[in-house]
């Protein structure tokens, strides 16, 4: 009879679930973990380290994503069943609102300057865009426009750090690490009429103002979008706007003409 008990107990040995090892590696930081989540324009793979979200890419082939991560970040990565619960709300909110909010991001894979640039662009509101040169000025390096472009290209956490909201100074959408179509889709999902914006830009309309306030803005600025057609004026550049007696908007902070 005692043998029955012991045999019964010994038969209770089983194997650990396949998800245990990856979740341990992710929790210890020996590897980053990643999950698939719905994004504003298609599913995303979202990777995380103990410090925060470390890599984001459009969801596709898992093996390719892992290879790209190892190559660019230099750490191991494993798929896991769940995103860390302590950050889940912040992630949901960031993806829904287009604002980073309280979601921590791990920017160790880029240089300190690039991290500073990426922090600066989180101030661009959803549905609005700013030129590369604007970002360069915001970080106090007005001459570093190309370096800003590089920082955008190296953004490890697109969508939540909105490099899709940084466009060319001529008002066209420009490049995107995952293709200009994704950049357009993200901006469209935020309520920006990209086609109209580019049409105006091609016509030389890069800044807009109101003849009642004599303030000029970037066309996507929340203030600029409230101006009625009757009062709207267009400018090619800041020099033209200031010559007409207009001052820059204090919200979207358009670049001013060189002195």
């Amino acid at each position, binding site marked *: 009879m005692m043998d029955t008990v012991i045999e019964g107990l010994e038969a*209770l040995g*089983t194997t650990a679930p396949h998800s*245990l090892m990856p979740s341990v590696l992710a929790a*210890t930081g020996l590897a980053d973990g990643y*999950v698939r989540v719905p994004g504003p324009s298609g599913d995303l793979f979202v990777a995380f380290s103990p410090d925060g979200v470390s890599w984001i890419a459009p969801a596709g082939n898992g093996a390719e994503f892992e290879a790209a991560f190892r190559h660019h970040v230099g750490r191991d990565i494993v798929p896991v069943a769940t995103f860390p619960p302590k950050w889940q709300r912040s992630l949901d909110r960031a993806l829904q609102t287009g604002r980073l909010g309280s979601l921590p991001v791990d920017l160790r894979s880029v240089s300190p300057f690039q991290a500073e640039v990426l922090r600066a662009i989180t101030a661009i509101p959803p549905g609005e865009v700013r030129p590369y040169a604007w970002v360069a000025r915001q970080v106090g390096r007005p001459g570093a426009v190309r370096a800003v472009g590089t920082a955008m290209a190296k953004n490890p956490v697109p969508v939540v750090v909105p490099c899709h909201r940084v466009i060319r100074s001529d008002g066209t959408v420009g490049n995107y690490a995952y293709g200009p179509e994704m950049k357009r889709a993200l901006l469209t999902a935020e309520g920006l009429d990209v086609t109209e914006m580019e049409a105006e830009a091609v016509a030389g309309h890069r800044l807009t103002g109101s003849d009642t306030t004599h303030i000029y803005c970037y066309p996507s600025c929340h203030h600029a979008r409230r101006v009625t057609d009757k009062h709207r004026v267009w400018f090619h550049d800041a020099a033209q706007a200031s010559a007409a007696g207009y001052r820059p908007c204090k919200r979207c902070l358009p670049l001013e003409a060189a002195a």
Partner: protein
Amino acid sequence: MTAVMDADTRDSEMINLLVAGVDDAFPALVRAFEDGVFSGLLRMVGNRADAEDLAQETFTRAYRSLRDFPPERIRALRIRGWLWTIAVNLARNRARTTSRKPPPLELTVPPVASALGPEDAALITEAEREWHRRLAALRPAQRTAVVLRHVVGLSYEEIAEATERPSGTVKADVHRGLAGLRAILDEEER
């Protein structure tokens, strides 16, 4: 006896690897002990979700400790007994905080296929459920001792280390636990 010697050999090899570098050795440590740690926790807590969660926490805490241990401390480790010290404490704390809540629903059909594939469907057989019920009827100390001895296969010394009790007490707990299970089985056959 062979089982004990195998465990000792495995321990000393693992310890050499850990002394050489915790980060490189740790995945191998998880691989070597995850089945035992998960099995034991599953039989103690009675459901896979909590068992997996506790197993993850056990290894995560073990890693953090190993990172802080000087080499001589790592050399002195008996890995299984030490791992189970962490696991037993976590399981005990979990039981305390969840005793007022109803137990989580155990899935009897596979959940929606996850990214990790269907093999991890949290299925528990009827026979396992019966054993969980029998084990749950034991006193906690006896349940822990019986599971560690006869499901996980720890020695009395390892169980004594894991539960921070004298090995004589552990031996008595195992015997009383087995007697309790036998009485439950006898009752079931009537």
